[in-house]
């Protein structure tokens, strides 16, 4: 009946947000979500294995705080101009995650963070090339990424 319950659920929510909350729209949205789920099932994408979904809100909170702090730091550096001794550079980070969904989420985190940009992932040797705006300590950046974001993601998508 419903091959992708989470997707269908979010489609109904989106339908209700775009229109108005009400019984008619609920039925219509449910129909749309059902057909969209069947359409996706015929494409057969890999199902993400969400093990510990209850850890997601905590990770989301950490990310929101970090993005806020990174925003402030980058805004200050931009307004200071070139007078500061800022040095930006490339950084090759070895990764342990293999799950495609977890990788996609990690890419979104690192790109949304104004201090870092995800450039190129190499699935062969499992490394990602990132560009860091204010590169002070390379080893510290790598350990921050691995402990703060990669470890919880690996736990969630075990």
């Amino acid at each position, binding site marked *: 009946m419903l091959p992708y319950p989470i997707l269908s659920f979010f489609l109904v929510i989106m339908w209700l947000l775009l229109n108005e909350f009400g019984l008619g729209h609920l039925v219509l949205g449910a129909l749309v979500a059902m057909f969209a789920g069947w359409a996706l099932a015929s494409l057969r994408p890999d199902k993400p294995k969400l093990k510990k979904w209850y850890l997601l809100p905590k990770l989301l909170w950490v990310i929101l705080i970090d993005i806020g702090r990174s*925003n402030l730091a980058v*805004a200050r550096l931009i*307004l200071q101009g070139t007078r500061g001794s800022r040095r930006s550079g*490339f950084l090759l980070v070895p990764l342990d995650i293999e799950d495609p969904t977890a990788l996609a989420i990690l890419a979104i985190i690192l*790109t*949304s963070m*104004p201090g*870092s*940009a995800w450039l190129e992932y190499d699935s062969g040797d499992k490394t990602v090339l990132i*560009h860091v705006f204010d590169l002070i300590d390379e080893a510290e950046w790598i350990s921050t990424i691995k402990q703060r974001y990669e470890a919880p993601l690996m736990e969630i998508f075990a």
Partner: protein
Amino acid sequence: MQAVVDLPIWAAIIVSLFLLLGAGLTLVGAIGFLRLPSFYERLHAPALVTSWGVGAIMLASILYFSITQQRLVLHEILIGLFVTVTTPVTFMLLARAALHRDRVEGNPDVPAKAPD
């Protein structure tokens, strides 16, 4: 401007603060965009716009319409979510295209591709 009148003053202040925060961050991002010297550094400036620039203005809009229409209006979240999900895709594609072009031209500032 009928709807503006029945907004309580605390809500007006919060909405205004979020609006100014978002617009200010957008402007800082744009300024950085103009001032930073290389392409890879400029890649960081729009992230200011797409993270809290978009987020703050969306929050202002949600708060404003929820209060004036006296029901929860959350559809701005869709724009926020959409921008959050699509920006990494565009930036990643652009960054890879830029890397590819720089490597083809033999630009020394760019790390070479790891041998397969």
